[in-house]
């Protein structure tokens, strides 16, 4: 199993009507052994910006700490919160700094920009941004997630329906993956 599959993870974010939702599984494992069933993968950067980090858990935690540090500095200097697009560029730059010794993480960023326009994007482990208008996925269950989201997604869903759709997509995909599961955390903004 590759280094990305060492801890196991499943992350997905979807866009709705003036809202977004981001969800992750809760399992932390060491290859096939389950260590914890309440592991947090999605972190809040500010009220309207969340980042989920899949892949190696230690890199995810370290990367999150560095990003929080950079965002707090930004808040002090600019006296406002970062826009999601700016934050995505920041994450991309930080990941590319480690081009030849990368963080083994794939971030999923979801936020509300100006005029409450939802923004989601994902990146590979060296910072290649992939902007999407509907949904983004990451983690060991990503192939199942692509299939489930493609089948269940509808544009302009309200928050309630978005929550249901996202939860169902996540649960059915992790049921087909040994390395992720044990429930999910869903954040709807």
């Amino acid at each position, binding site marked *: *199993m590759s280094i990305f*599959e060492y801890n*196991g993870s499943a992350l997905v974010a979807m866009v709705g009507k*003036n*809202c977004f939702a981001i969800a992750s599984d809760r399992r932390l*494992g060491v*290859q*096939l*052994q*389950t260590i914890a069933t309440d592991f947090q993968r999605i972190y809040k950067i500010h*009220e*309207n910006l969340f980042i989920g980090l899949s892949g190696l858990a230690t890199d995810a935690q370290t990367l999150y700490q560095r990003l929080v540090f950079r965002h707090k500095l930004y808040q002090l200097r600019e006296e406002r919160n970062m826009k999601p697009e700016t934050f995505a560029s920041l994450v991309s730059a930080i990941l590319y700094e480690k081009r030849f010794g990368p963080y083994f993480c794939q971030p999923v960023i979801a936020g*509300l920009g100006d005029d*409450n326009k939802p923004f989601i994007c994902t990146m590979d482990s060296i910072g290649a941004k992939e902007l999407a208008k509907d949904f983004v996925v990451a983690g*060991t269950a990503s192939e199942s997630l692509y299939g489930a989201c493609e089948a269940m997604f509808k544009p302009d869903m309200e928050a309630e329906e978005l929550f249901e759709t996202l939860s169902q997509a996540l649960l059915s995909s992790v*049921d*087909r*993956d*040994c*390395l992720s599961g044990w429930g999910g955390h869903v954040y709807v*903004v």
Partner: protein
Amino acid sequence: MKFDTSGLESHGQLVGASDGLFNGFPTAPSFEIPNTTDFDCFQKEAIQMVKPAKGTTTLAFIFKEGVMVAADSRASMGGYISSQSVKKIIEINPYMLGTMAGGAADCQFWHRNLGIKCRLHELANKRRISVTGASKLLANILYNYRGMGLSVGTMIAGWDETGPGLYYVDSEGGRLKGMRFSVGSGSPYAYGVLDNGYRYDMSVGEAAELARRSIYHATFRDGASGGVASVYYVGPDGWKKLSGDDVAELHYNYYPVQPSVVEQVMVET
């Protein structure tokens, strides 16, 4: 050094019957050697291909009333779950069970083959084969194919004239008699619960509950085990399936969720 092919030749008799009863039915089906220059690496690749498939948890133990056999039902290929409903307890005949761990095809084929041999023994000798005999038959066949990439980790459990019998047989050619066994990637976790709760004089109900709990705990910790925990009992009248419970439901039965106060964070959008 000439390559030693003596293990590949069909053996004359494996059962002992020397009358022409085995005409037309080969005692040890022989397979051709692959046409590669590097025979050693071919074996290694074949073994690596089936290695991930030992993701499973099976267990069996003897107690006062008979033998209890239990298994999960998940088949995994690396990280992908290919099925949640695999039958890992194979019914060799009405009084003998075999468990499946390792390559599914290997286990199913050789267990069915063993069932055929047991039936032939019954017809030739006018009485049922013992568990000792059946497990020896299987172990000898698997020893012939040792090193060729078969992946079988099975337990033969049954009830014969001497009482309950349990043997562990694997594709390396090993055969062990014992009272408690667990095979598969989830076996360390199952052993922990099984060894702790085991007593020889349990009732059928208590033994079934112990077996179910051991499988459940193994599926909790091991990512390659899951699905349905099936429990079978082998007694003097043969085997009987006792239960097949989804492990997710068992989780909420054993550890019900305490409703906790959830703080709702209202985000103004």
